[in-house]
């Protein structure tokens, strides 16, 4: 195949101007989005120990994502202009609204899960009436313990097990937060799904060849990375006896991630080349190595050894981050070289798939 012609070897499309904030956001948005789902479901299942760690992941995603995105703007002071409109043709517009919704919901749900409250401990009166210590936050109580309630059941829900009259009332702000957290938990879990996946569409809706041509695979790849990172993050933080669900999620995500990269590259055909060269190739190989070894460690040892869980989880997390960097860099590499823009377009025209931008004959009047 001849090298496509070009204008002095110059690029046809512009490389994005996005800074390192964006690949980190791709990673953290995925981590946060999938963590909210893990947290809510674990909570429903009564695993508050895991739920709490997963809510931490969601809060990290929620807290850092807007900061990264705002810092990437050319005019950070105008970040609220992102909410001037809602456009389905613009994944960035849709994503801004998703992030906005997720931010509100996951903040309420996450803070409620992390801030201790007296009800969480079964409504025990912790301070005598009149004592100055705020009863809702004694320092000596480990917040993730759940003593049995009066009938001997383990507390399953975050809702009060007993009436407020037995304990000192919570401050009003805390009560409001607890009230808000109830609908916020499923809302955050649901909003987390598009948050973890829309970024695939964000990259795909550009003229960057390796991104646009991977539009069917990128969201799935990012979903897999999100599952792997949310599971791995919770695995790192959670005592092994409570972390089985997180390990399963991390493994599922890792396997899917490892399987989807070759699928994407195969579908890209010759356009898959940027994934094997320069920085994108290096990040890709690093991602694969880290994800494979991390997942193996998690599968083999993390059920018994906390050290293995921490190490394996960290590797899977790093692998997911490297995978985003690989995709990000491959986009730049494919935009920079005109052969990736001109070549496939020329082949489309030559193959009769499209007419292309030019015509050599005079148009018929009936145009």
């Amino acid at each position, binding site marked *: 195949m001849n090298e496509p012609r070009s204008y002095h070897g110059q690029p*046809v499309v512009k490389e994005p101007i996005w800074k390192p904030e964006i690949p980190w956001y791709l990673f953290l948005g995925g981590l946060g989005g999938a963590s909210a789902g893990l947290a809510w479901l674990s909570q429903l*299942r009564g695993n508050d120990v895991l739920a709490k760690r997963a809510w931490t992941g969601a809060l990290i995603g929620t807290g850092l994502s807007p900061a990264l995105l705002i810092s990437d703007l050319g005019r950070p002071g105008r970040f609220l202009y992102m909410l001037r409109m809602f456009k389905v043709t613009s994944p960035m517009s849709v994503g801004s609204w998703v992030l906005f919704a997720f931010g509100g919901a996951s903040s309420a749900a996450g803070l409620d899960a992390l801030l201790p409250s007296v009800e969480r401990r079964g409504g025990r009166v912790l301070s005598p009436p009149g004592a100055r210590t705020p009863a809702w936050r004694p320092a000596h109580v480990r917040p993730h313990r759940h003593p049995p309630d009066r009938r001997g059941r383990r507390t399953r829900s975050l809702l009060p097990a007993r009436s407020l009259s037995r304990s000192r009332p919570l401050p009003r702000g805390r009560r409001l937060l607890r009230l808000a957290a109830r609908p916020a938990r499923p809302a955050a879990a649901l909003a987390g799904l598009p948050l973890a996946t829309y970024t*695939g569409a964000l990259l795909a809706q550009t*003229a960057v060849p390796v991104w646009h041509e991977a*539009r069917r695979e990128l969201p799935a790849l990012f*979903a897999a990375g999100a599952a792997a990172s949310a599971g791995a993050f919770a695995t790192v933080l959670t005592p092994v006896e409570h972390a089985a669900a997180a390990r399963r*999620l991390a493994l599922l995500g890792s396997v899917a991630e490892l399987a989807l990269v070759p699928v994407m590259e195969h579908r890209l055909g010759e356009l898959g080349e940027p994934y094997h060269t320069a920085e994108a190739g290096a990040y890709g190989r690093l991602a694969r190595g880290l994800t494979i070894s991390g997942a193996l460690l998690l599968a083999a040892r993390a059920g018994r050894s906390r050290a293995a869980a921490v190490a394996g989880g960290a590797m899977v997390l790093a692998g997911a981050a490297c995978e985003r960097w690989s995709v990000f860099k491959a986009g730049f590499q494919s935009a920079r070289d005109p052969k990736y823009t001109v070549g496939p377009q020329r082949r489309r025209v030559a193959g009769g798939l*499209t007419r292309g931008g030019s015509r050599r004959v005079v148009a018929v009047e009936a145009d």
Partner: protein
Amino acid sequence: MSALEVRTYGAEAKPRVGFFTDTSLCIGCKACEVACKEWNRVPESPIGFTGNSYDNSIDLGANRWRHVAFVEQRKELDADGVAANGLVEAASLESLASDTGLQTYQDGDGLRWLMASDVCKHCTHAACLEVCPTGALFRTEFDTVVVQQDVCNGCGYCIPACPFGVLDQREGDGRAWKCTLCYDRLKDDKEPACAQACPTDSIQFGELEELRARADRRLEQLASAGAEGAQLYLADGSDGVGGAGAFFLLLDDPEVYGLPPDPVDTTRDVGESWAAVGAAAAGLAAALLGSVLVGRRR
């Protein structure tokens, strides 16, 4: 879609205007680049020596809304270092010059120049406009595409979205800039600065319908005079961007001038993208449910 957008202007809608850039008339004087910079107060752009023929301004960008491309093409030389023009070929080149004013391969060294003034295409289906999350990019009553600088927040999405690499971020400013087709001048019934400055009428401004008819006549003239490779680029609605407000007559394939041979408004595939997002989100939900609800309760 653009028709709909323009219809929303109601009685204020104007006929669609644009540029017909006839590169067979371009002499590479760069008056358009200068006039554009002066009228629109476009900041200085760094100029170095590129070695790319006479092109030292490189490409379109935030600080260059017109850009003149220079291509040098040389015929094969014979043993004496003279371009091997057959008698028939020489005669046809001569008639091309006399019939159409088009000079191609020079005698002797067999060199020909291709020069073309590039500009924002003001696409019918403009990806930059479709992806702009703030609405800073909008369609004017003249059916042109303009960035509102008081709205742009510098997210940069339009920059890789443009299939022609027209837009870029202005350094130190943070916002995206491009050709406005002299929106301010259009409002005063004046032609854009570049078209007014062009000494050979290579850049022609006018109502799109009329320009397209004119371009067809010119293509016919050149083709019948034997200009091989002459082609109209983005001159009707059947390409991937639905036709352009600024279209071109080229003497060789578009990629030779740095233009994509099959430009596409990628947002036409947005449905496919959202379907993939939906499927991926469902898969993620299934993975979450499977991980948490299946297996022992821990």
